[in-house]
């Protein structure tokens, strides 16, 4: 019955092994499950899959108008190109045309009206991508121009919204502002951000019998792709199977917007009966899909002589683009994070969801949170310059505290606030005060280069704010050789989710991770899943997989207790073995025994997050299960002749609770920091006055390259601080929170610029702080100095 007879270990050997700790369980630096395949090119992404001989390639012709009525579409010229199978427009979609993920507004192909430059208007299926493109460009499309809305300010003025404004209010901010000894008012533009996942959007669709579809997609949300493919074809969900092994990066960009290519490919596949692949070339990807929302934020704050906030009013206006997509929740999250880690006092935060004629902006790591969270950091700097105190001191004075200072503007109590001690640790560890003095000295003597330093915290709420999404499922089979098949509803986009979930299962069964086969996320294994988003992947799916593993393990324990006539407490799983009172056997031996005794070795698992509730109408509740914290201290050097800069050093201390995998968590923290710094520095999206994105490729849109990482980069995880909530092994989510540590770079650049006016003027710099914007700030401070006093205090050339 067993293949393992010949290599059977002695009892002593087994006991010796069982005494040692499992090396690949929770808390270990296990390597990414795909690493060895990724470095050899063996890891299969969708475009690498073997193609069917009759497969079609789809290309969508994009609107070249920001806002126009479509007066004529003639597809007949497409068919003159050899190799073309089909050309379609909106009227050819057999089922529902709209693929809006929450609210309608996203026609699969433009429906009589083009609403942004880049919107897919028609699509062609042909024997190669180049042929499809050529044919699509041959179609005749005529427009009648309409007036576009191209800026947030314009949208605010016209009250052009994708949904109604919404307000969080606690206390009487108007009265508090009126009473406050000091006031600052200001406005700032916060730029958007292109995801720039290295693998562009792609889906490959194969018709199946019964009119169904098998869909391979690079999506964070397989269930939604399943639903939308079914809807555009007019078939029931159970006819569509979505398979998702790995993405070449997601970052939120494949949460809702992976569905478009999948649905276009599905429609073509349905109409032709041929497998169809749709891969967006980079430029098309950047033109068609939405990005992080640009924001225009206005603030009015009151503070006392110590720089402590008394009252705050903010208007956060997100540029949603032409349709709702996920914008309602995104702007909500910006509002939820308008406090960062600070007690605002009486506060009114209003979020506007502006409709403009650009691509529909969408989820991106932080989901609006960063665009809100940066506001108090800008405000802290402004206050610090006004009263002439180090910005770090102002930050510390404003942190959430004891009773009376422990409620957010949406009435959630801030529990287990570790920021004060976390900041103190980092401040000391990175020698903030010493370096502050050294930098001041350097700046006094350096006429051209100026250094800046900033330490900024992050407090980020964990949970989907749409409460029902906080659920997950998993499926585990144990086979009779002791190998384990693991499946869950989360998706792997590089973040190491599959590795972490496998570690959790390994830990529960006390077996090495190489016994566990990680499998593609698949809607016919785990149904009705939530997107892998909101940093929730490991929290939710880890718990669901743990639940499935515990179910099977408990069956095994009950069986063994019965079979060997011992108590359940006598059955202990330990490092690939099972100890049953005074016996020991390899894990697989118990599995075989259980099988022969007709014990089920397969189980689903399920999890839903406890404790959370939120009443959006009242804007009150506990939308977040817990908060994740972190802080970063960045030092930069700025060239005051060009505005160019470099990050000299970054020290990070980040809270992941009890880490499931410190190597993966540090990878998330470092990657998020650099991505966050990119958002606020070199990554500038530029549209022309016709609404066309001018930075639609990596030649013009500059994400951080290797030399942009901090020259001296020191990252630590907070140790010995388990999550107080009952999360999976008391870990904390890590995907998004460290993204906002990049704000320290933005503030450090402003600090360097502030030195030009001897730290008495707060530079006003819109994000991203491109070299050009930095140089204009330098110039403006030089002028302020010149007007203020004839002999400038700061050394200038």
């Amino acid at each position: 019955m067993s293949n393992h007879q010949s290599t059977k270990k002695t009892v002593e050997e087994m006991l010796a092994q069982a005494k040692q700790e499992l090396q690949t369980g929770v808390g270990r630096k296990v390597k990414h499950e795909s690493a060895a395949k990724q470095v050899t090119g063996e890891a299969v992404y969708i475009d690498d899959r073997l193609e069917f001989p009759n497969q079609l390639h789809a290309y969508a012709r994009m609107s070249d108008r920001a806002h126009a009525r479509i007066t004529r579409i003639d597809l007949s010229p497409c068919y003159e190109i050899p190799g073309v199978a089909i050309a379609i427009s909106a009227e050819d979609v057999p089922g529902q045309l709209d693929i809006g993920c929450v609210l309608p507004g996203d026609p699969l192909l433009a429906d009589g009206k083009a609403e942004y430059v880049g919107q897919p208007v028609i699509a062609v299926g042909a024997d190669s991508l180049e042929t499809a493109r050529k044919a699509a460009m041959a179609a005749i499309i005529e427009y009648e121009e309409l007036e576009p809305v191209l800026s947030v300010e314009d949208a605010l003025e016209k009250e052009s919204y994708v949904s109604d404004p919404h307000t969080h209010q606690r206390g009487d901010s108007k009265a508090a502002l009126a009473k406050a000894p000091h006031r600052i008012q200001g406005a700032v533009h916060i730029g958007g951000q292109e995801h720039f996942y290295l693998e562009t959007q792609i889906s490959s669709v194969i018709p199946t019998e019964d009119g169904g579809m098998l869909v391979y997609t690079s999506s964070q949300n397989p269930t939604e792709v399943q639903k939308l493919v079914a809807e555009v074809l007019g078939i029931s969900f159970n006819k569509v199977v979505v398979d998702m092994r790995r993405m070449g990066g997601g970052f939120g960009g494949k949460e809702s917007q992976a569905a478009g290519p999948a649905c276009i490919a599905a429609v073509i596949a349905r109409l032709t009966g041929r497998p169809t692949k749709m891969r967006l070339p980079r430029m098309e990807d950047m033109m068609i899909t939405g990005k992080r929302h640009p924001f225009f934020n206005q603030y009015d704050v009151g503070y006392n002589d110590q720089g402590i906030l008394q009252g705050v009013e903010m208007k956060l206006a997100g540029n949603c683009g032409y349709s709702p997509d996920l914008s309602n929740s995104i702007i909500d999250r910006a509002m939820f994070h308008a406090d960062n880690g600070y007690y605002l006092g009486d506060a009114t935060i209003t979020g506007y969801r502006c409709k403009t004629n650009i691509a529909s902006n969408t989820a991106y790591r932080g989901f609006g949170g960063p665009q809100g969270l940066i506001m108090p950091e800008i405000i802290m700097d402004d206050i610090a310059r006004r009263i002439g105190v180090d910005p770090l001191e102002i930050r510390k004075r404003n942190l959430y505290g004891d009773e009376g200072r422990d409620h957010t503007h949406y009435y959630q109590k801030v529990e287990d606030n570790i920021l004060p001690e976390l900041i103190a640790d980092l401040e000391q560890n990175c020698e903030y005060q010493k370096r502050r003095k050294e930098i001041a000295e350097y700046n006094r003597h350096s006429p051209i280069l100026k250094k800046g330093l900033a330490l900024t915290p992050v407090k980020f709420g964990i949970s989907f704010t749409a409460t029902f999404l906080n659920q997950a499922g998993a499926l585990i089979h144990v086979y009779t050789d002791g190998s384990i098949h693991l499946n869950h509803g989360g998706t792997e986009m590089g973040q190491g989710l599959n590795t972490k979930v496998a570690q959790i299962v390994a830990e529960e069964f006390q077996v090495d991770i190489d016994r566990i086969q990680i499998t593609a996320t698949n809607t016919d294994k785990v149904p009705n899943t939530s997107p892998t988003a909101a940093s929730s992947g490991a929290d939710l799916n880890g718990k669901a997989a743990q639940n499935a593993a515990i179910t099977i393990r408990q069956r095994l324990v009950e069986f063994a207790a019965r079979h060997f006539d011992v108590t359940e407490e006598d059955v202990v799983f330990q490092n690939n073995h099972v100890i049953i009172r005074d016996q020991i056997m390899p894990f697989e031996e118990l599995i075989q025994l259980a099988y022969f005794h007709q014990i089920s070795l397969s189980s689903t698992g399920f999890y839903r997050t406890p404790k959370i509730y939120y009443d959006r109408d009242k804007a009150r509740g506990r939308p977040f299960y817990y908060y994740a914290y972190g802080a970063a201290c960045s030092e930069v050097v700025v060239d005051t002749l060009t505005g160019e800069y470099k990050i000299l050093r970054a020290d990070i201390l980040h809270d992941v609770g009890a880490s499931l995998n410190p190597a993966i968590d540090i990878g998330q923290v470092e990657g998020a920091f650099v991505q966050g710094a990119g958002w606020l520095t070199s990554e500038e999206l530029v549209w022309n006055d016709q609404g066309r994105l001018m930075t639609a490729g990596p030649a013009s849109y500059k994400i951080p390259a290797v030399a942009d990482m901090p020259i001296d980069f020191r990252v630590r995880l907070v140790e010995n601080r388990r999550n107080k909530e009952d999360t999976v092994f008391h870990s904390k989510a890590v995907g998004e929170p460290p993204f906002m540590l990049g704000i320290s770079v933005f503030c450090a650049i402003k600090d360097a610029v502030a030195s030009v006016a001897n730290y008495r003027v707060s530079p006003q710099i819109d994000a991203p702080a491109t070299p050009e914007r930095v140089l204009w700030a330098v110039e403006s401070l030089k002028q302020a100095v010149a007007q203020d006093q004839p002999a400038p205090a700061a050394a200038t050339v």
Partner: protein
Amino acid sequence: MIKFLLNQELREEHTLDPNMTVLNYLREHVRKTGTKEGCASGDCGACTVVLAELDGDQLRYKSINSCLTFVSALDGKQLITVEDLKDKDKLHPSQQAMVDCHGSQCGFCTPGIVMSLFALGKNNAEPDKEEVLEALAGNLCRCTGYRPIVDAANAMYDDAGADQFQRNEQATVQRLKALQRTDTPSLALDKRHCHNPKTTAELAELFLQYPEARLLAGGTDLALEVTQFHRELPAMIYVGDIAELKQVEVFDDRIELGAAASLSQCYDALTADYPDFGALLHRFASLQVRNQGTLGGNIGNASPIGDSPPALIALKAQVVLRKGDQRRTMPLEDFFVDYKVTQLQPSEFIEKVIVPRAGAVDRFRAYKISKRLDDDISAVLAALSITVDDGVVTDACIAFGGMAAIPKRARHCEQTLLGSHWNQATIAKAMAALEQDFAPISDFRASKDYRMLTARNMLQRYFVESQVIEVETRVTAYV
């Protein structure tokens, strides 16, 4: 027909489309899908592969962007891709180090990064930090923040054993030698053709025969016409196999750079005399592009934002143009006529660039201004060479890129300086004079005001750097 080694497999290709990139050849033609397409424009490095070329009895390895390389360039070379590095079941040290250092997350950039690391390992036994960063500057990673990748670049040297490429080197050399030909390889499909001449004379003759042909050197710009603008290139002449056109020679009074010499090749020769030219080349695109791209190409495409023309103009470089047997030499500044228009006549090509040697004092400075420090296109490029004798300016040659439709000298600015005392007041006047020289435009890289202000500020920087007192003036000095 072209012949090359795909790792160790001999490939003879008779009917490939000369417009096919190496990336598409790999992914679609031979279905080796380890090499990824991230952008198809040479900006992300996901498609990086390595070419091994004969260098006497040795092999020279270089990383290139396969998305910018047409298949014609493979003739007589060995093409190595990420699938080839594993030695039976053992990962290559560059791969193992990436695994051990947690250098891959989503893994899509990883094959390209591994190939850049592989090339680094082949070319540099002990790279310093700057060299590691240089090797990776053309590989974008969106997940890791790069730290573990840089760690991997260092860790891969811990495995000191010879890899299979080193063990097979002599055999590979012999196989490549057997592939070298005396005839002119060519590729043709439908009405498209590409010829690979081996001598300049042959090139001159072919270009007379096909005046409509596009000259293909590194292809780092030309290939974009196919991959980004979807134009067909019916006729090409590939100049990358012409040894004499790739020569770099240093004489007592001048440096002669063959038009097809790669930017990487030019780097050493120019850096020795003009350290700032070296610093500039370091920020010029990426290593992959510098390995492919040529000085002749950078001049010939006549972009107003090409990095080398302003620098060469400030050095009073000359270009030698050739058509058939006829040669003519002219100052580089006269070569540029208008936006993308040059002095080149039909069938005429750039043969070489002649750069005067530096005198006892290196007065040359080049300043690049861009949104991102590495691998970005300049908003403004300033190149200055100013001679001061006894406190008075006796010579000034100042050229800018990004300020006009062509790379252009700042004549008014130079006039202001000439004969003036070398002091802050003179510099202020020279800065103001730039207004008469240039009327820059605004685009997504920079506004016209920013271009003008930074152009002026570069005179200030030059002045400060010319002072005796040491002052830090460049953020790029921090590595």
